[in-house]
């Protein structure tokens, strides 16, 4: 049994105390003396030319201090994109300007046109109604394939077309892939849509800008997953504020799921305006506003093909995807359908030849960027649906076809044909575990029972792999990233032995304050309650890249391990001095430094006190104090994997699908806090099942968002979901980080959509609907009914 508070223990979360008592401090809870409020007037048309904006009536409204439009931002930069993709022809992507406020044209419903600043939020909203915007509506660009047709209306007049890039990967393999298809014994083809989603963390975005004229200091409080990234992007590229004059604080943040990674226009606008009006400026998004201003996720249209030989071995894979960028390039948008998607197309299989083509397209819709899983759910969904379809076409068990083609444990490290090298894994083991925990053997009996009630039961399976712990900086630099992807930590040991750990990884639900403390407590052997984890404020944490891509423990945790090791090394020197022993003989165990083979020891607090009260201290060779900083840059991605199984019942009269059970067998490598890991998987499963059955971002033919509120966008609710069976006992530790951890934040959302849809197809095919080989997500009752009766 691991010690409570140490590695491997389901230690209860310390952050819960404030959240359960209403004492959390979220950005909207911050109110600064003298604060005024901003409201953004947003475009209500998808595409239009702004002929003029008449502010006169609005400016005369009660409480209005200032109304800003694009002209006020003429001297500042646009919202930058953080990743430049080079396409298959060697051309860099087309990168349109993204002004803080719409300049000349509006390009999606929700594009901000004017910023109204007033004494109260209500006054700002009232005044927005009096702003007169003269817009000539233009034909909206919505369908991705039509957007690329010759002569199509352009989203950006100054670009040559609506094509952002045409990416081929690996371009050199294309001919060999095509040749393998030409001689395949069987080819399975699938065309599908990966539905557009809205992340919808429960806390809407908020930004509060403040400026102190006496020191020229700006402060931005914002709902961000990565305050340092915001400081860098906004300071250096938009507003021209040097880092030492800009502090970005992300306090308690109510969920992110990717949507709070990006630098948004509103952050720059409130920071800029705070100086202009000489008062702190606060903006709080409404939920309806979030639907048309938070970056969306997914939105791929794909054709994928699998070639097999006459013994059912996978010989080649070919995929062709249109990826929606929306109207502008959000911070990491270009990397999602490319480097976070194409590199995962091998899945868990030893397919020798793979070619991926992705055309990224501008449309008059909200920008699309990473959403929980980011590229990997899109890769997993198409691959795992395709493999399932192939098995059904060939008349073999989908489990057996997967097993036959799995990369086997003796093949690691495994170089895939799509650039990445998997360090470790055991896919047969996770598959075995899944079949066990989902009671696969009992399925037929359960199906027969469902049939007695007139219900169609099906079982669907999916096996996923993901690349997490993003990422080696030199590698991503070659791939077009305009940032490094290391992480940082400062471990500050105080004189009495308590510790403050300053981390660049932000926590917005992940429980870092608990699990990171467990890591340090385990390493030093002291009580976790002596350790505080500090994050979210650029003024006291070292430059960190933030939380996304399931990277916090694998990358941020590794930085903490590195810094703690430096602390331990120095503490051993101090202990050696105090004990008059050789440093090599000092052992640290349970918070005590002992001379090996003797009963001489000094405890942790004795060493820390000596470090800060260095009366008896080797001052000639060692600095006083005990504080260390480390940066950790990973040498590879990590590769969590797992097998997911879903059992559904379909009501043949209505087409309604009910998820009866869901089992997940994951290999996350080593586990620090099993309770937190299980919670992460459960939450991911809900989002993946939501994508599969409920959620959809629907635009009408005019580019109006039909699913623009919680009244219309079907978020998973408590009564839509079953209890989950989650197992993480299959462990192949990551080989290249000190904790042997892989990351668990996104797995649930990656592996579950294909398992759900495979289960629905299984139910229908078993019931004799052999012609139903695919239903696009969300698999709504109407779609199921139409498929059955079509």
């Amino acid at each position, binding site marked *: 049994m691991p010690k409570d508070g140490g590695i491997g223990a389901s230690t209860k979360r310390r952050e819960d105390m404030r959240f359960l008592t209403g004492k*959390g401090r979220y950005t909207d809870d911050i109110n600064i003396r003298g604060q005024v409020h901003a409201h953004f007037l947003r475009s209500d048309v998808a595409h239009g030319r702004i002929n003029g904006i008449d502010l006169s009536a609005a400016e005369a409204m009660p409480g209005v201090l200032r109304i800003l439009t694009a002209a006020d931002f003429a001297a500042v930069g646009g919202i930058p994109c953080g990743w430049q993709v080079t396409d298959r022809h060697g051309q860099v992507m087309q990168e349109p300007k993204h002004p803080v406020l719409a300049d000349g044209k509006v390009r999606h419903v929700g594009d901000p046109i004017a910023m109204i600043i007033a004494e109260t939020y209500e006054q700002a909203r009232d005044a927005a109604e009096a702003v007169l915007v003269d817009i000539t509506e233009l034909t909206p660009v919505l369908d991705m394939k039509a957007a690329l047709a010759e002569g199509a209306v352009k989203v950006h007049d100054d670009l040559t077309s609506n094509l952002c890039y045409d990416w081929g990967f690996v371009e050199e393999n294309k001919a060999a892939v095509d040749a393998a298809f030409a001689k395949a014994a069987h080819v399975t083809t699938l065309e599908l849509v990966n539905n557009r989603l809205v992340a919808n963390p429960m806390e809407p975005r908020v930004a509060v800008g403040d400026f102190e004229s006496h020191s020229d200091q700006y402060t931005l409080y914002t709902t961000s997953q990565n305050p340092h990234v915001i400081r860098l992007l906004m300071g250096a590229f938009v507003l021209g504020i040097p880092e030492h004059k800009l502090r970005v604080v992300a306090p308690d943040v109510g969920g992110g799921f990717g949507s709070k990674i990006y630098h948004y226009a509103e952050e720059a606008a409130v920071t800029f305006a705070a100086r202009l009006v000489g008062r702190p400026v606060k903006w709080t998004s*409404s939920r309806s506003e979030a639907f048309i201003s938070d970056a969306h996720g997914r939105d791929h249209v794909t054709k994928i093909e699998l070639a097999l030989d006459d013994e059912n071995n996978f010989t080649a894979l070919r995929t062709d995807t249109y990826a929606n960028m929306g109207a502008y390039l959000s911070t990491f948008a270009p990397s999602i359908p490319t480097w976070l998607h194409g590199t995962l197309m091998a899945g868990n299989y030893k397919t020798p030849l793979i070619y991926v083509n992705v055309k990224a397209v501008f449309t008059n819709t909200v920008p699309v960027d990473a959403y929980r899983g980011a590229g990997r759910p899109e890769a997993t969904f198409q691959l795992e649906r395709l493999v399932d379809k192939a098995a059904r076409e060939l008349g073999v068990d989908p489990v057996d076809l997967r097993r036959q083609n799995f990369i086997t444990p003796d093949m690691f490290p495994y170089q895939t044909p799509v650039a990445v090298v998997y360090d470790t894994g055991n896919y047969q083991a996770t598959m075995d575990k899944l079949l066990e925990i989902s009671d696969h053997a009992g399925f037929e009996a359960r199906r027969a029972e469902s049939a007695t009630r007139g219900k169609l039961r099906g079982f669907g399976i999916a096996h996923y792999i993901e690349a997490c712990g993003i990422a080696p900086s030199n590698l991503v630099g070659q791939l077009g990233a305009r940032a490094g992807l290391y992480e940082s930590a400062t471990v500050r040991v105080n004189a009495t032995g308590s510790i403050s750990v300053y981390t660049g990884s932000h926590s917005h639900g992940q429980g870092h304050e608990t699990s990171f403390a467990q890591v340090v407590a385990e390493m030093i052997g002291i009580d976790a309650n002596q350790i505080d984890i500090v994050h979210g404020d650029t003024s006291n944490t070292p430059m960190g890249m933030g939380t996304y891509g399931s990277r916090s423990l694998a990358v941020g945790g590794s930085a903490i391990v590195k810094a703690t090791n430096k602390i331990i090394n120095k503490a051993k020197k101090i202990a050696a001095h105090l004990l008059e022993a050789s440093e090599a003989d000092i052992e640290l165990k349970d918070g005590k430094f002992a001379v090996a083979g003797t009963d001489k020891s000094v405890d942790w607090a004795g060493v820390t006190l000596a470090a800060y009260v260095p009366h008896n201290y080797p001052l000639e060779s060692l600095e006083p104090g005990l504080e260390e900083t480390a940066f950790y840059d990973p040498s590879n991605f990590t590769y969590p994997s797992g097998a997911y199984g879903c059992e559904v019942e379909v009501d043949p009269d209505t087409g309604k699908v009910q998820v009866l059970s869901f089992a997940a067998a994951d290999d996350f490598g080593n586990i620090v806090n099993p309770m937190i890991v299980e*919670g992460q998987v459960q939450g991911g499963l809900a989002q993946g099942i939501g994508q599969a059955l409920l959620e959809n971002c629907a635009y009408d033919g005019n580019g109006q968002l039909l699913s623009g509120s919680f009244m219309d966008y079907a978020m998973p609710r408590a009564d839509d979901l079953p*209890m989950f069976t989650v197992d993480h006992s299959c462990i192949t530790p990551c080989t290249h980080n000190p904790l042997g951890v892989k990351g668990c934040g996104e797995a649930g959302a990656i592996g579950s959509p294909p398992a759900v849809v495979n289960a629905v197809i299984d139910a229908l095919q078993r019931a004799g609907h052999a012609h139903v080989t695919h239903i696009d997500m969300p698999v709504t009752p109407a779609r199921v009914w139409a498929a059955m009766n079509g």
Partner: protein
Amino acid sequence: MTKVTMTVNGKTVSADTEGRTLLSSFLRDGLGMTGTHIGCDTSQCGACLVHVDGKAVKSCSVFAQEVAGAQVRTIEGMANADGSLSVIQQAFQDHHGLQCGFCTPGMVMSAAALLAENPKPTEHEVRHYLEGNLCRCTGYHNIVKAVLAASGQDVSGLGVAAE
């Protein structure tokens, strides 16, 4: 502006309000009680749920002036008198029924209202009752478990692999 007086967590409070001021804004902006959260604008998410005269009410769905004189209870009034967590709050911590914490105040208030009405709910009843409270982090698994545990029921077999 009209002065509105009510009792919040046992204390008489008053603040000036406009006719359009929602109870949620009255609590957050008028009284500075930021434990009650606002997660949507269509009364769908339940993050703002409080008790008004003992009943669960989404505080964004009533005007402050409508509940003048009422007894209101918010998340800030849920802990025991000595500051320790109440049974429901403790169950949420014990069963990891929260992650980012944003939906948590409404979820706890909703769960408390459920258990007041139905002290031993089934899993189905818990899920049905909490249908008006959205959580994006937990997948509800541990929330349901926490509510069942707070009602004194054994939850050790829930969501565990079949033997």
